């Protein structure tokens, strides 16, 4: 993936920049006649810069080596867990989700020692609850 990674991301930024210029900015940025700098000016300039640099990267990639597919699969699973926990927090609140999230994450990382699992599942969420709701007098997420 040495050169192909850069070519791939370069192509992405080329397309992203062009899509911003021709599709997104005209649709989602209001045009204003007065003033010295239109709301569209800077996003359009930056989108062209992105497209140009993306194109440049396609033509002249660096030797950067991207991580292997396993890394991205693992990252996707972790992101899915975190995303699901945010959704769960919106339903039942932080106080119920936090211990479960901590347990899942620790098990996924490979922690199996009961003492440390107990520390992460019980003590840490309890400490956070105490810090936020009792000391700082703020609300927990959810």
């Amino acid at each position: 993936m040495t050169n192909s990674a850069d070519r791939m991301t370069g192509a992405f930024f080329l397309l992203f920049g062009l899509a911003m210029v021709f599709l997104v900015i005209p649709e989602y940025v209001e045009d204003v006649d007065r003033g010295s700098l239109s709301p569209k000016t800077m996003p359009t300039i930056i989108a062209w810069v992105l497209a140009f640099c993306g194109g440049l990267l396609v033509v002249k990639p660096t030797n950067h080596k991207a991580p292997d597919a396993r890394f991205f699969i693992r990252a996707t699973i972790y992101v899915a867990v975190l995303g699901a926990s945010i959704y769960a927090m919106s339903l039942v609140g932080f106080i119920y989700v936090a211990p479960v999230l901590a347990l899942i994450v620790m098990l996924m990382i490979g922690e199996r020692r009961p003492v440390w699992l107990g520390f992460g599942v019980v003590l840490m969420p309890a400490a956070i609850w105490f810090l936020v709701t009792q000391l700082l007098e703020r609300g927990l997420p959810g």
Partner: protein
Amino acid sequence: MVDFATILAGFGDVFTPINLFFVIFGVLLGQFVGAVPGIGPVMAMAIAIPFTFGLDPLPAIAFLVGVNKGGLVGGAVPAVLMNTPGTPDAAATAMDGYPLAQQGKPLKATKMALFSSVTGDTFSDIVLITVAAPLAILALKMGPVEVVALMIFAFSIISGLMGESLTKGVIAAALGLMFSFIGTDPEHFTPRLIFGFWDLFDGLALPSVAIGMLAISEILRRMSEGRGGGGAGLTVPDTGNPEDRRVSWAEYWACRYTLMRGASIGTILGALPGIGSTAAAFMSYAMTKGASKDPDSFGKGNLHGIAATESANSAVVGANLIPLLTLGIPGSVTAALIISAFMIHGMQPGPLLFQNQGRLVYGLFGAMIMANFMNLFIGQALLRFWVKVISAPEAVIFSAALLLCFVGVSMATNGLFGVTVMLIFAVFGVLMHSFGYSVVIFIIAFFLGPQFEKSLAQAIALLNGNILNIYTSPVAVALLVLSVVSIFWFLSKRTNEVADTTNLGVPDGETLDQKDP
């Protein structure tokens, strides 16, 4: 600009119990997170910022500065004992620290790192305190035209020096700017790129973006690399000789030129946006080795090697605040985090800060000096404890950090929308890091974006709508010429050896092996 009474009052503020407590707490936390491989002061600062909401500005910022300074000291501990730097800054320290530890002198190595760190840090703080106010007076003479030119110059330097290629640096900066445009535009206040999400009307919240990209993405990356799990017990070799457990005055004094060289390099590089503490450490190490009468002893446990790297990387911390406080431009990720803390507490960093909040600025300077002393005392007292801390399991640390990020961002943004944005930017951070784009450039550009656009609008108005009238400002012209020259210079000569690795956009596997000078 600031009268003497204000300066004294500012320094005096540090000695209130609450401020002293937060300086000490910050240094303690910093040394702790620095000693744990995988967290580091940047992540700790990012997580801690939302929790400082309820504090007054001085203890909040003094706390963050303490975390940063303590982190640099703590980062040397795993570098010396495990050859695994707790922070990238400490990578060069491992080159002589680890061999010393293997010879049964781990405490001598960590204490030399501590003394060198405090020496370099104090030197750069004194430089900061001396030059910041005069520079701010100069900066006040700049108008929007000069500010725009200065920002373009800063972008060109940062994009060229950070990350692995100028093209990727420009892309990272452009992306940061693009995301900063989300929300109301600064001149007409019309909604822009919000895609129907009215939560985005005020733009993307800085805590969501910063914590997502700096903390969560780093945790995700490390978890995905499968480095976690239980901490392996660490055996620390010890000769039993008391001389090998301390640094004598003679040994410290013998390193005075090395320390001064390192502190000077760190201060100069730290004052320039884009060059970080890792570059300073390696440059100082290389220069010390080059100047040594016994260069072959480097890499085998030479105290000068530790003195060179630790004095240089710590000297960057104070100097980093020079562009931040005088121009409002963060030159590094830690400066960007401190600037966001300033803004959370209602302060606009820049030259006017001295005029409007002089007492607070000098309170901050006092807190920095105090943090150095605390670093010394706490480091001396707890070095043996930090040696134990490096065996703590990453699984617990990461899960706790994740929960703290969720809570912190939720508090900062008043709800789960900000937490969702944080997760999106965490994914973005992982992808950027994986494909070699600097997250730090992104964050700095994201932070500077609104100010850049606002100054540009003002500059165009001042130039009567014709940007070619810029010739009326020689300073702006000079800065733009410098920007063009620097871009051509970076294109013609990539300075890989001084590219900053303190950022999270560092390519995978870039360790001291590749950085060996």
